[in-house]
Each structure stands twice: as C-alpha cells, then as structure tokens.
C-alpha cells in the first residue's frame, strides 16, 4: 500500500481524503480501531443529551473510490520501521510507502485502573461510548462529570439542560484552566451554576461507591456526591502506546517538526496525538478539532512534496456557544505573559488578552466576542499592537451594530449578546 493512515478521526479522515486529492495516482488505506469513521466529536455532548440524532453526527459518507480503502474495527499493534510495515491485532502485516499517524488521544482515567469497576463509568471520547452513555442515561438521571476542561464543561451544560442533575468536578480552582484565567472562568462558572449545575472546584475524585455492581456515588474531596453515572472528561493522553518500540517517541511524546514530519522522513503525524516542536525549542499541543483538520490536510500534502511546508498557525483558537454564553478562546494563559482585561462581569462580559511585549499571544472573550477575528488575525501574524492596546478589548458590538441594517442588527444581537434572562 502506498499511503497508510492510522486513525479515522478528524485528522486521519481529512488526511485520507486530502491524500486522494493531492496525489490521485497513490492508493490510500485508512485503518480505524473502532467501527465509525467520519463523525464529529464536538457534537457528542448534544448527542448524549438526546438533542442531536446519530445521523447528524456524520459529516462524511464513503463514496466509490477504488484507490481509497477504509478498514474499520482493526487496531494497529506495532510499527516496524526497518521493514516499513505495521502489525495489526489480527496478526496481519501491512507495508507502507508513507505513513500518517493520527491515533488521537483519550481521557486520563484517574483512580479507575481497578479491574472490577461498577457499571456507569464512561470516558467521553468516541461515538461507541457515547451510544452506551445515551442508552445508560435513559434510566439514570444523576451524573457526575469529571474534568472542567472544554469537553467536561460542554458535556455538563448539555446534559443539565436535557433535564439531568449534573455535578461537575475540576481539580483546579477554576473551570477551563487550560484556556481561561480565573476571572474570566468565573463568568462560565456563574453561567453553569445558573443552569443548575453543581460545581466542585479544586476537588479531586477520591473514591467511588457501588451497589449491586452499579455506581452509587463518587467521593470528591471528602464529600460523597450521589450519581449512577460518572463521565470522565479529564485531559487527553495520546494513543501512542503502539509506538513504544518504534523509536519515534521522546519522553513519551510523539514529536513532529512544524511540517508534521516525525523522526522518520516517511512518517508524518497529525491531531491530538502529536506535540509540535519548533527549532527554537518550543513545544505546542494545539489539540482541537480545527487544528486536527488542518494538520490532517497538511500531513497529506507534505507526504510526497519536494519541499514540505510548515503549519503556519500553532495556536488553538476555539469558539463555542455554551447554552447562551458565547466564548472565544484565542490562546492559553502563559506564566510569562502580561494580562490586560476589560471587566464588565455584572453585564456578563469579560475580555482579556495575554501579551508578550506588544504581541498578542493569547486571550479569551467571554460574553461578548466581537472583534475576535481581528484579534486572532493580529495574534497569528505576530503583529505588534501599537498605541492603546486596551482599545482592542472594549466590546465593539455597539459600533458594529450601528453599521448594520436593523434586520441584521436584530439577528446579530440574538446571536452574540448575552441573553438578558441569564443576567437576572
């Protein structure tokens, strides 16, 4: 086989499709451990909450293509670089000319390394487990979500609104610690509390209790929270165990160059499994859906390119509407960056930028996301912001609305302003 791709998630599928487009004469084989390819992980919280039907999750349907083969339900056991081959768990061996690794990651499972786990504990990651969670939730209404990152917060919000009683546990002292500072996270916390979610911040899962083989409650920093369902959405560890003896890992990380090439010139990697390392020694882990898509495409393009091109954006911007609260994350807070903020917490707005020198290196807009595009543009171009930096932070909605015709103004307002009823 000429191009083999491991993993049929966001990065792997895009890599396969793009490979067919860029190198039409090359055959492509995509191998996926699970039974589904071409669905959207970010919609899984809505799916679990019963707000989105399964067919809506799929954004791609296979079409007839003799040079694109997709094999599902097969796991790669190991990689043998000297013979350029992969060993599958069904004892088969597959040779490759070029390889793209896109095995993604999975939540970290604390404490739960026990063998005899009761029913009701699920990691939040794949459609297969989301189906099980959806079925399980038909009979079990009390949920504990472990992990206050993006996945945990989204999962908690959608399930709470679907009528479940949700408790959200985060070990740091504020939500979305990878993306927001404490004051901006405060708005998200208030929003979730208004939705009715019980928050346990700065708390660790210590133990679980079961009854007749089913989870009954979870002990969080000394306190027992009742719940028959524990959804684990803590962090992400790359699925790279199968690369253990391949010589591609450094300190348990799959390092790639900015052109997504691994230590082996014939092997590229993309998505949540990789750490991108620049020659300046910086390491980036932009593990988001848009990045996985971009990286999958770039890895495919670079496979046979005479001059492989680097990824030009290494940040992890993200935007979402969390049941009425708009959030744009430009980049994570870093210890050495200065923070400037525009605080209108009473109105449900908090906007902050992280600056190194006069360059924007990150930031977050909560409640009012106007000007996000401009700020993102300034950030990725490394532009020096001159004059009064704070002017970028003032919500520009009002000026912006005045320029719009009134019908559009109404639509715009509905989309991006903080709903009034939430404020009361």
């Amino acid at each position: 086989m000429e191009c083999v791709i491991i993993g049929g998630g966001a990065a792997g599928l895009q890599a396969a499709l793009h490979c067919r487009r860029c190198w039409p004469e090359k055959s492509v084989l995509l191998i996926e451990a699970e039974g589904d390819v071409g669905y959207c992980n970010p919609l899984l919280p809505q799916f679990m909450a019963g707000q989105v039907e399964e067919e809506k999750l799929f954004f791609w349907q296979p079409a007839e293509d003799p040079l694109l083969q997709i094999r599902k339900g097969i796991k790669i056991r190991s990689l043998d670089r000297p013979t350029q081959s992969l060993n599958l768990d069904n004892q088969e061996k597959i040779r490759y000319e070029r390889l793209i690794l896109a095995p993604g990651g999975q939540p970290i499972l604390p404490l739960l390394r026990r063998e005899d786990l009761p029913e009701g504990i699920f990691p939040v990651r794949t459609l297969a487990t989301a189906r099980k969670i959806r079925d399980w939730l038909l009979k079990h209404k009390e949920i504990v979500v472990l992990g206050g990152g993006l996945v945990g917060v989204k999962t908690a919000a959608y399930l709470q609104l679907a009528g479940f009683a949700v408790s959200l546990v985060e070990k740091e002292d504020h939500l979305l610690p990878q993306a927001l500072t404490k004051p901006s996270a405060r708005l998200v916390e208030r929003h979730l509390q208004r939705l009715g979610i019980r928050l346990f911040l700065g708390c660790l899962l210590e133990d679980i209790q079961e009854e007749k083989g089913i989870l009954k409650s979870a002990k969080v920093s000394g306190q027992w929270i009742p719940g028959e369902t524990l959804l684990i959405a803590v962090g992400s560890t790359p699925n790279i165990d199968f690369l253990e003896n391949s010589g591609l890992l450094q300190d348990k990380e799959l390092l790639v160059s900015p052109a997504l090439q691994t230590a082996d010139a014939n092997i590229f990697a993309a998505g949540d499994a990789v750490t991108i390392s620049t020659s300046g020694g910086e390491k980036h882990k932009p593990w988001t859906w848009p990045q996985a898509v971009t990286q999958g495409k770039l890895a495919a393009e670079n496979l046979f390119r005479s001059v492989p091109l680097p990824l030009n954006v290494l940040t992890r911007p993200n935007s979402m509407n969390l049941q009425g609260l708009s959030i744009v994350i430009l980049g994570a807070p870093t210890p050495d960056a200065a923070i400037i903020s525009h605080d209108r917490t009473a109105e449900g707005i908090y906007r902050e930028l992280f600056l190194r020198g006069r360059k924007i290196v990150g930031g977050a807009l909560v409640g009012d996301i106007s000007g996000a595009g401009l700020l993102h543009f300034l950030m990725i171009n490394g532009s020096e912001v001159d004059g009064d930096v704070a002017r970028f932070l003032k919500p520009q909605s009002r000026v912006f609305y005045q320029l719009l015709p009134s019908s559009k103004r109404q639509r715009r307002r509905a989309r991006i302003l903080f709903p009034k009823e939430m404020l009361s």
Partner: protein
Amino acid sequence: MTHSLHREGTISSLERDYALFIYPARGFNYNGSGPKVRRIMELLYLEAPSNMIVSTLRRNLYSGVRPEEVLESIKDGARIYSAFNNREKLKEALVGIKKLDEGISVVVSGLIDQVREMAAEINLNPHTINLSLGIHGRTDRLPPPDIRQFTTMCGHGMVSPALVRDVIRRIKKGRLALWEGSIILAAPCTCGIYNPHRSQEMLHDLVPLYTVNRW
C-alpha cells in the same frame, strides 16, 4: 586552552560533557615527556573516554586505529585531547593521573560548577581558571543554536553545519543509525574532543524537529 570553552547546549546535556587535556609545555617539561604522556594515555584507555586523540597521530577512537599504534606514536611533546560523557569516569581518570604524578599539565573543561565540585571531591586545587564570556561580534552569521551545539564540540570548528544537517537528513531517511551519524560528525574533529555520545543524544532530540525536503 580556550577552544573547548565555547561548547553550547542545555545544562542537562553539558553535564554529560567534559574535555580533558594533557599538555607538556616547552621550557618546563617538554623534554622527556614522551614516556610520561604514554603512561597517562595507557591509564586513560582504561577509563574509556568518549573520544580521544593524541597530537602525534590525530586519529580518533572511532577511526579504527589500534591502541598500540596510538601508544607507539607518542614521543616528546605529544599532547592528549579527550572527551568524557560521564563525570564519575572523569573523576576516576583524574585520581589516576594525580596518583601517577608525572608533572604534566592537566586541563579539564566543562560546566564551571561541576568542575569545581569534582575538583573538591577528589581534593584537587585548580591553579588557573579560564571562563568563557560568550561569543561576540557578528553572531547573526553563525549557524542557529541547535546546530551550534554540534559544531562547537570541535574546538576548532571543523564540524561543518552543513554536515550536521546532512547527517540529520540521512538519519531521517533511515540510511544512518544515530550512532553512525554521530561518528561521521566526530571524524572531522582533529582536536579529538567531539563527544559522540552527547552528539547521539542530541541527534535523537533534534531529528523530529527537522523536515527532510529531498526524497
């Protein structure tokens, strides 16, 4: 003896890289130094340095030269240049040299804190200390820092940045193993203090960061 002072790299990497020189000096102990240097050389062979050269033969440990050939070549005025990748091994070598007490000048080069500590541990009192004050001038013309970690290991700058890149390219294409690449880089260094063990580690770290652009 400044040529070994400008090795660049991270502290954790430099902690495993020391240069040791044995230098007879004209007018002091030059005449009759041959047998003394030879005895020191014999001792150093037992301590397994990472690399070593004697000025009378200029063939490093990995050139295929036999120890007898090296020892045979030693005559009055011969100097030994060696590199160690292990602090403890270097300490043992220094203890041995001290015991031999041949009266020939010994220079150790490495991270100053580490070298001072080592000297204290084995009860040696350095009589002269040279410190590197960094590199000045048109530094923009130098190769980038990651490549300089390799090129500065040869005190005379004989390891070319282009060779380093070429070795990285060949390793990434699977044509060379890390150690083989390291030996190739060590070959042009005629001062014999290029440390291939450290270079192997650095190649391992650096290989993923570079993208090969010629298939």
